[in-house]
């Protein structure tokens, strides 16, 4: 065992000591003002494009919650005179895959295509980005579908818990708004709302274009220019308001007939690029992020058999994203499980981590670095993130070093300063 550990450490230091760049990221700005991030890779005859806008659900208000999501969704359902059927068929004819994602900060559209089909794939992709038609009949139908989904979600314990948690955690801040919207707010959305939201937030100046795959830099420049030039040439988007921290504990119990209680606990956590990011990230690996080897899993699952899953994570966002602990357990033992979680967290914050735990955490995080970058899809998501949050281009190159520099004292200090467990938000759906 000791010999093996030594060998592992030697190998890790070789990997970590490698001064070669992890990924060669090219970065530039288009004439229309979009930031571009590009990784050239000719291993597979395909390419991926992701275009992100600061058009997430936090751009909405309580009276138009869901507008960001409906806008993104509707962009695919009619553009440049092509109807929804034509658009999907045109992608399907060439095996191209169109994707999209929404969170509180951003809305993004993505495309994966064979190199041989890229011209046609990009032509349709650009229509969606540049000329969404937002057809009225389609909007009416989709509103009905979205409302049906919201009503169903309102009966399911995991969705009930998530919505209540975000609401209690963020109060009046727009991070509290449900991404899907509410029945009343979806009902009220008009075609003009979509057009206006698109014009205001899908701007060339705020767009972040990430590309990876089988293309030269010259080709990537041409693709990015074309994407950028056709977007609304409206002003760049301002920041999201800052988050106020809770000043008192807030516990909510919500009845539900499910056999398990769904429990969420947390506090506003960190921003992208936060000075405390690495101590909190490494510390959380030890607390509840490290799969089968975390303290929460050990205490709640391994020692006591109380849950199938218990976890904690930081979700860094443009402003303070949530620090969240979650678990599900049969309702008769919810209080017992919750006590174990609270005790584990209290001990963690009070006494910090051991040197052995810290060493094991660093060993896993740095040793696992190659797996963060072992596919085009993963690299694309990193460069899109680096671009959107304007992290240093050396973020990936510096990652292991940043992790290795974290000390036990820094972890304890950061958790004590940032995570005030006496002001926690907790939500229990299906409590006894």
């Amino acid at each position: 065992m000791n010999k093996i550990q030594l060998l592992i450490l030697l190998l890790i230091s070789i990997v970590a000591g490698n001064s070669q760049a992890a990924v060669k990221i090219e970065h530039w700005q288009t004439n229309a003002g979009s930031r571009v991030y590009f990784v050239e890779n000719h291993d597979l005859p395909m390419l991926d494009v992701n275009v992100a806008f600061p058009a997430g659900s936090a751009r909405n208000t309580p009276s138009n919650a869901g507008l960001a999501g409906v806008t993104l969704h509707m962009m695919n359902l009619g553009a440049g005179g092509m109807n929804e059927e034509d658009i999907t068929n045109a992608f399907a004819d060439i095996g191209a895959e169109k994707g999209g994602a929404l969170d509180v900060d951003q809305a993004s559209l993505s495309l994966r295509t064979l190199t041989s089909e890229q011209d046609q794939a990009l032509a349709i992709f650009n229509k969606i980005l540049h000329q969404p038609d937002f057809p009225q009949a389609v909007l009416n139908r989709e509103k009905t579908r979205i409302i049906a989904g919201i009503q169903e979600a309102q009966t399911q314990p995991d969705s009930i818990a998530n919505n209540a948690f975000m609401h209690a955690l963020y109060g009046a801040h727009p991070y509290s708004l449900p991404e899907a919207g509410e029945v009343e707010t979806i009902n009220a959305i008009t075609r003009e709302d979509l057009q206006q939201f698109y014009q205001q937030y899908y701007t060339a100046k705020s767009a972040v274009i990430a590309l990876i795959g089988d293309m030269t830099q010259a080709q990537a420049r041409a693709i990015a220019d074309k994407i950028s030039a056709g977007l609304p040439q409206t002003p760049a988007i301002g920041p999201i308001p800052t988050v106020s921290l809770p000043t008192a504990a807030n516990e909510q119990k919500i009845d539900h007939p499910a056999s398990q209680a769904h429990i969420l606990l947390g506090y506003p956590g960190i921003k992208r690029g936060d000075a405390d990011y690495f101590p909190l990230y490494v510390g959380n690996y030890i607390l509840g992020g490290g799969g089968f080897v975390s303290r929460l899993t050990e205490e709640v699952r391994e020692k006591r058999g109380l849950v199938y899953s218990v976890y904690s994570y930081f979700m860094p966002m443009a402003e303070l994203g949530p620090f969240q602990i979650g678990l599900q357990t049969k309702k008769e033992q919810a209080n017992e499980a919750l006590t174990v979680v609270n005790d584990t967290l209290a001990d963690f914050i009070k006494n910090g981590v051991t040197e052995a735990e810290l060493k094991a955490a660093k060993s896993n995080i740095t040793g696992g670095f190659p797996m963060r970058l072992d596919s085009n899809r993963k690299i694309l998501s990193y460069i899109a993130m680096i671009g959107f949050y304007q992290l240093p281009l050396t973020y990936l190159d510096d990652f292991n070093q940043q992790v290795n520099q974290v000390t036990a004292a820094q972890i304890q200090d950061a958790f004590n300063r940032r995570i005030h467990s006496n002001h926690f938000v907790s939500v229990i759906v299906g409590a006894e």
Partner: protein
Amino acid sequence: MFKSALLVLFLASPAMALAATQAQEFQLDNGLKLIVKEDHRSPVVVSQVWYQTGALDEVNGKTGVAHLLEHMMFKGTKAVPAGQFSREIAAAGGKENAFTGMDYTCYFQQLEKSHLPLAFRLEADRMANLVITEEAFAKEIQVVMEERRWRTEDKPQSKVNEQFQAMAYHAHPYGRPVVGFMNDLENMTAADAQEWYQHWYAPNNATVVVVGDIKAAEVLALAKQYFGPLKPKALPARKPQVEPVQMGTRRAVVKAPGKLPYLVIGFHTPTIQSKRSLQNNHAKSGQPTVKDWEPYALDVLAGVLSGNASARLNQSLVRERAIAVEVGAGYDSASRGQLSLFELVGTPSEGKTVQELELALLAEIEQIKQHGVTQAELNRVKAAVIAADVYERDSMFYQGMKIGQMATMGYDWRLSQTYPEQLKAITSKQVQAVAQQYLTEDNMTVATLAPQALDPDAKPAGKPHMH
């Protein structure tokens, strides 16, 4: 759905030819199979150990034991005590987990490439030396019951699917849930887990699949070093199991808390014939002969119905007629049990009933029975397969999954390579023929969800799982 094909060599570019090499298969003297696919795009390796055992091999009263044993496999051996397996993998920067299905149980690690020996050492150890204590079992069975509550008890659609499978298969083990019935979990013992381990965990019942930045010859040498010394076992006889031919529509309703109804319709269909079933073909009494192209035609049919958002079901029932808020079709062309269900699923729109949606779905099938499908529709299904051929190679894990699944289901994993060609050869007439033959009223099973309004003041009626 079985999407396919691994290997297209792009000889135009030397870099691409290097990136994609043929997988190689070996067998050790103790019967262990090893399949290695070199992929040099990143300095990482995926190691998967596939056992040819799953819920398919379980008997009544002990459902869920395959999955329970998968959990127990993390509970330690004499040489590697409880928790150490995960700690060693974590210390090497690795990710690990396991999953159990009807047909197989798979354990995997993803590691920086130099750590493959660690994965092999630990997997070989627990293949032969697992220790199951009463104490560890007592805790883990509670964990598994929580998993069942989370996956099935509190998820209305999962409950419908469980009922649906049980109704579609009266005799065959595919009618039972992988996670097990709650009653069986409550009555399971450490001895049941031990028995399962003794029966099925042996090198001659395992396939090791490795994908990554490694040399096949070196992986073979490592496999001989770590797995080579393990002794093979006499495996229990696997009796042929067939599902009696269905003689009429079967129906069930499931009530659960929720807002939206849900509908599943299934038809018994054949799969691609495995090596074993081709040998045993005459042993199956009363089963109709399957033509080689039929499973491919069924796969094309699923693609034409719901391969993309403009495919027939979504275009017609969601977009044009707004009968449904969600629809889909699915079919698995491969399984170890050599049985499959062609499924249609959907959620009716507000104001529409599951009966209306059922009729509308069946009317779409009738259209194809009468008129076939268009060339443009066939071309789209083929385009998806050709593109998937390339896209899949972006994920080493997925490449390993496909090889391991096929091998463990009893197929030659090279079948993946001919899959696109087989699919491309399918005609409209053949799609029409399988729809006519298999998607019939007498061969149909229908399960629906009747959602029950949530009353926040009501306490749950009865507590069926009190301890």
